């Protein structure tokens, strides 16, 4: 018998990354991963950057993985909502590109530190974190 499903939305400011019925959801909570099944108690939590996994069907291993940025998580009455600043489908992560982005951002940050560039330091750090996160998630997938 198929497991009970519940609805999940993974939403970013640039549009929804995933919406649908799933059997299980695992998100990177600030204090460790949070796994959610149907009929979970209402919950609000903080998310850190990491891997979000959506189990559409656990018996056939139909799983989607996303590299997600920091955000918020809310569960209510068989509805889970993850609001994150960024979500990239692990299948679409381009190793080469992520690595290049990482190196570019690190090089730019060094220039800022030597006072040769006035780029936004905080933004560069975010970009580095984002690229690293993508690479980590892919490394595990």
């Amino acid at each position: 018998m198929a497991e009970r499903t519940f609805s999940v939305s993974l939403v970013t400011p640039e549009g929804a990354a995933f919406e649908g019925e799933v059997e299980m959801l695992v998100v990177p909570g600030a204090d460790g991963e949070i796994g959610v099944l149907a009929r979970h108690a209402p919950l609000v939590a903080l998310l850190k950057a990491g891997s979000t996994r959506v189990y559409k069907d656990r018996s056939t291993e139909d799983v989607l993985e996303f590299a997600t940025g920091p955000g918020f998580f809310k569960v209510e009455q068989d509805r889970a909502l993850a609001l994150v600043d960024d979500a990239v489908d692990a299948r679409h992560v381009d190793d080469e590109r992520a690595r290049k982005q990482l190196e570019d951002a690190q090089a730019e940050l060094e220039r800022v530190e030597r006072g040769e560039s006035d780029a936004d330091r905080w933004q560069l750090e975010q970009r580095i974190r984002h690229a690293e996160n993508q690479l980590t998630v892919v490394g595990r997938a």
Partner: protein
Amino acid sequence: MATLQDIKRRIRSVGNTRKITKAMELVAAARLRRAEERIVQLRDYADRMQELTAGTARAASSLRGLTLLQEREPRRVAIVALTGDRGLAGAFNGQILRRAFALERSLRSEGREVRWLVVGRKGRSTLRFRRYEVEQAWTGFTDRPGYRDAQAVAHRLAELYGEDEIDRAVLVYNHYVSPLVQRVTEQQVLPISEEVLGREEDEEEHERALMGDFIYEPEPEQILERLLPVYLETEVYRALLESAASEHGARMTAMRNASKNAVELIDSLTLDLNRARQAEITQEILEVVAGADALTQ
């Protein structure tokens, strides 16, 4: 009077200009459509974020200690002008800056200090030309702003606010109404107004919140501390997107007018060309007739 050659050359040159303005119009129209889509996509996220913020604020026992909510005597005000990176968009950039300077004058007359932050090359170069001290400028993304760009701006504002460098932050940007109508708007983004938290919510909403009885991980106060900066990011992102849509709309209109003018100019030049050609033919006939007359006499 201009020779036939000159007029022909001018017609060709105006024709080429028309091709360019027409192409820019089409590009602006396509980008405008994309910018509109992104505004719609953001709405989904922003609405849910707002709902979450309001719910968490209701669960929190106290809102004190949240810096971004603290109302202070506004001695130093940050003006953030959202302009474009490029010109050829009619009065788009000029309008924003004019409004920003007017705001600055009125703030100064009230004895307040003004700090400038600016988005877009056009705004930055105008402020530099006028020898204003610019706290920070962001450029290179105005025609297609990403959420990351908004995060950078919001982060800087929150930082200045947290360090007591500014007591209030105001965005000056073009509010997008329709492709033809944009309205220059001033929007205070810091301190965040408590209305956002929806504390004076209606009863039904309140009942639902009580029924929910959420587990908060960590405490609601701590979650709120993270939610407020994100709310600021969302507001800045929305303003950036609206500004981008307005810029494309303004450019589309400006380029459509330019193309129309070019067509009119070509028409009137063609008329001149025909008149000049006919005058030349008449002149030649007169000469032939006069020559023939001279021979018969």
